[in-house]
């Protein structure tokens, strides 16, 4: 039960209770340093652009991107350590190190140095595992961050450019992960590289040449590890760093989005200041991400290369999988039927091209296009800084549900052999099932997610108009039972109504709409019709928030009902009913 409704006014001043009002010695010292620096660098001027008291709204979902950022920092730190010992060379050597089951075996120096890092450098195995765990978390965090941004509508104007940067970061992160996975030159990573060679060779016209040029001749050649190494430690990290910087600058420039709430509008941003709260929280979170990665690195074996042994094109192990983020194209590669065409003396391998060369770029393009498609359908040209709850954009949420379902099923297909042995199923049956599921699953997920969101919207409308369910069952004088509803608080009601009213675009009555093209042209006509259809799909079934009159009416009704309820309670045996009107 809630306590009394009267809001307490602050009893204290704006500083913490016992803090002295006069500046302490350390504050003075800090001031002196700041003055010294400003005399030379003019730093105070820079804080005009980005105030030290800049506001960052607080919400757990706003920290998902930070997980990615901090795991990237961990990757840089652990990666630098690894470069001190790793030798990216494919020169064959006879291993004479500490791990004796492989002593005397021929291997590349890359693999030998990976063994040296694991067995002869104290903490080397920890750093290797931390680097790898951080990579898996980096990409995972980017994905959940992307989903958060999409589901809350944070990609809308003016943030579309940052959305594109984010998608490119995901692509680069995956590329970085794949090149890193390949470096130790163990049996598993070599199998992955061999598959990558197969992917390249499947590219029409230039494939064979691409393969021969990348590998420095015929697979596996003696060039691929050094080449992947420079890509892995120089090219891609440089691009990542540049794009992450741009991403963050834009976050600062646009100021963070916020959830609607009392006092929050499209024109302001409410939250704790950068200095000290947000700095402390973000800085603290860095240590937590670093700490969790260190824990994972110390407690769980990741990629035990000594058990795989050096790469040998004639060997393979059961459970040959890529790292998780490459799992979904690998899954598609497993479930694709044996489609290969032979035309005019050339072979076109659809069974490789569709899963690897077509689907991932297509998925990326779909992601990049989503904000622009939505903006085109809604015709919305306004800036948006207040987030939407996923339920209030049912079709958008359903699109993400469909994409996630497609991703998840393809991903599961990539582990079909492990699923088969762990759940005692037939690998063939799983594959047949997945062939249908990757197509039907997203459709079903779309429909369910959309209906679910609309039901939640109805539920919200019910709460607004009829109050919340009290759990109090009242028996009326004529013997019927009914649950009594009480109105929700003004704050809660405001939050529920703090969203836009949506209008379905109609191509016929579009004269006053800003987004429509000038009359004339068959293309424009078709586009307008399509836009109308999509707009109907997006908005027609949504539950709009009640109007002021409806609210007023329902309040009137609720008051009456409440009155009646109190009356009944006073008359009946239950004397401990609600006493406040909340």
């Amino acid at each position, binding site marked *: 039960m809630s306590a009394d409704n009267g809001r307490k006014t602050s009893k204290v001043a704006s500083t913490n209770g016992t803090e002295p009002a006069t500046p302490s010695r350390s504050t003075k010292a800090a001031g002196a340093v700041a003055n010294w620096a400003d005399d030379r660098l003019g730093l105070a001027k820079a804080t005009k652009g980005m105030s030290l008291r800049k506001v960052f709204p607080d919400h757990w979902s706003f920290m998902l991107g930070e997980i990615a950022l901090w795991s990237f920092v961990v990757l840089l730190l652990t990666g630098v350590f690894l470069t001190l010992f790793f030798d990216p060379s494919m020169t064959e050597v006879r291993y004479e190190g500490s791990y004796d089951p492989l002593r005397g075996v021929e291997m590349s120096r890359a693999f030998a140095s990976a063994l040296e890092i694991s067995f002869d450098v104290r903490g080397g195995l920890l750093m290797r595992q931390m680097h790898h765990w951080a990579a898996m978390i980096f990409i995972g965090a980017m994905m959940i961050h992307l989903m958060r941004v999409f589901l809350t509508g944070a990609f809308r104007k003016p943030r579309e450019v940052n959305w594109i940067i984010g998608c490119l970061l995901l692509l680069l992160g995956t590329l970085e992960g794949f090149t890193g996975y390949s470096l130790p030159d163990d049996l598993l990573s070599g199998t992955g590289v061999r*598959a990558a060679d197969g992917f390249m060779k499947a590219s029409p016209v230039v494939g064979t040449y691409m393969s021969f040029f990348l590998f420095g001749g015929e697979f596996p050649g003696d060039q691929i590890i050094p080449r992947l190494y420079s890509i892995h430690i120089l090219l891609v990290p440089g691009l990542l760093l540049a794009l992450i910087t741009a991403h963050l600058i834009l976050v600062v420039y646009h100021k963070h989005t916020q959830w609607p709430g009392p006092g929050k509008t499209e024109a302001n941003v409410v939250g704790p200041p950068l200095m000290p709260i947000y700095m402390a929280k973000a800085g603290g979170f860095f240590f937590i991400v670093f700490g969790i990665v260190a824990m994972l690195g110390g407690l769980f074996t990741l990629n035990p290369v000594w058990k795989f042994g050096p790469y040998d094109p004639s060997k393979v192990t059961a459970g040959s999988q890529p790292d998780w983020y490459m799992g979904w194209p690998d899954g598609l590669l497993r479930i694709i039927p044996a489609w290969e065409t032979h035309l005019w003396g050339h072979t076109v391998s659809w069974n490789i091209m569709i899963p690897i060369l077509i689907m991932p770029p297509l998925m990326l393009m779909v992601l990049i296009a989503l904000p622009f498609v939505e903006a085109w359908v809604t015709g919305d040209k306004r800036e948006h800084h207040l987030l939407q709850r996923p339920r209030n954009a049912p079709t958008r949420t359903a699109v993400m549900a469909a994409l996630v379902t497609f991703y998840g099923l393809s991903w599961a297909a990539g582990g079909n052999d492990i699923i088969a042995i762990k759940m005692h199923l037939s690998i063939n049956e799983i594959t047949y099932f997945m062939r249908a599921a990757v197509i039907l699953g997203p459709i079903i997920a779309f429909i369910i997610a959309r209906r679910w969101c609309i039901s939640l919207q109805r539920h919200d409308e019910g709460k607004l108009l009829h109050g919340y369910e009290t759990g109090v069952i009242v028996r009326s004088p004529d013997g019927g039972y009914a649950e009594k509803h009480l109105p929700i608080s003004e704050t809660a009601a405001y939050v529920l109504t703090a969203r836009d009213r949506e209008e379905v675009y109609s191509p016929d009555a579009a004269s006053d709409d800003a987004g429509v093209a000038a009359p004339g042209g068959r293309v424009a006509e078709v586009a307008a019709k399509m836009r109308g259809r999509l707009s109907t799909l997006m908005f027609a079934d949504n539950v709009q928030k009640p109007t002021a009159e409806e609210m007023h009416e329902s309040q009137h009704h609720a008051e009456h009902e409440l009155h009646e309820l109190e009356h009944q309670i006073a008359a009946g045996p239950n004397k401990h009913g609600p006493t406040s009107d909340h």
Partner: protein
Amino acid sequence: MSDESNIEPAHGHEGDHLPEEPIANPGLPPHEPRPTDVDPEKEKRAERQVAALFGLSAISTVLFAVAYFTLDVGDNWSTFGSLGASTVALGATLGLALLFIGIAIIQWARKLMGDHEIVEMRHPAYSEEEDRQRALADLKIGFEETGIARRPLIRNSALGALALLGVPAVVLLRDLGTLPGDKLEHTIWGRGGQKITTVVDGKEVTVTVPLMRIARDAIGTPILASDLEIGDLVNAQPEVLFNPERYYVDPSEVEGINLQINKSKASLILLRMEPDDITPGKGRDDWDVNGIVAYSKICTHVGCPISLNERTTHHLLCPCHQSTFDLANSGKVVFGPAGRPLPQLPITVDDQGYLVAQSDFTEPVGPSFWERDYDRDRFGDDD
């Protein structure tokens, strides 16, 4: 603190024709102090808590250093139970040291740092109209002064010259690797039976290289046909990789990277089954030796080595993407994504009874590639 007058629904710079909002923005709720703000006791406790967390972190860091210097790695690892002690201890102490710092800082921020929410006003992302006009005007003037619109000759020749600069960028990549040629169509199995010129005792002679024996992978010994029993599966390699001299091959050609290149195409699966189980393909009647058949070990999908054979069905499964081939029936695909049968190697026995390849594979092994032409296969598959 908040300036309530700023709170007003914003709808950008578009006409506002929406109905009245059902509930007006109630404005920021007043600040409510935390227990640590009003209760000095609680504040002290929180302070001690944060300091203790920093202390725990310091202890963990010291333990990290202790673990680093006391726990052995190399060929004599210290262990905790069955776990490598160094990795676990270093990871756990480092992890705790970092986590405690993180938790301490956040606890400090949550409990003790000033916690006033402040309000900042947003500004639209676009520039002031004045700035925009100025920038556009500058751009226009700049372009006009180049005269690029008036002088198409210069513009076109400049564009042409710049476009041509793509050529060095592409040409420079040429030496990344050798050209494919017909390398993908041949394997070292073809070495057997070739006529070559070689130098014996200072004289140039023409010799016929003996047919390539099939040797056990990782063991390196050649295989007598009589060695194998029904149901045996041998992972095999051409003998030249272990005994190059017999085939007049320089050892350097089957060492290091050359060994890897050769293995990536020549790896072989040898299977002995009941001769009656075999359905020989067109023209393949004499490709087996008394129920022993040989197939490429390299999957025709993306090139994984493949040797997961079911003895009872002669079905060979690829562990990477589950393509399944029927080894009793010309290596045909019975399941999965592979588009082509596994290439079969025609085999026979030499005069000492060792299994040898009759020739090279009659088609390229491994994954498909653009130039691959079925019609050039020396024995086309009938479907």
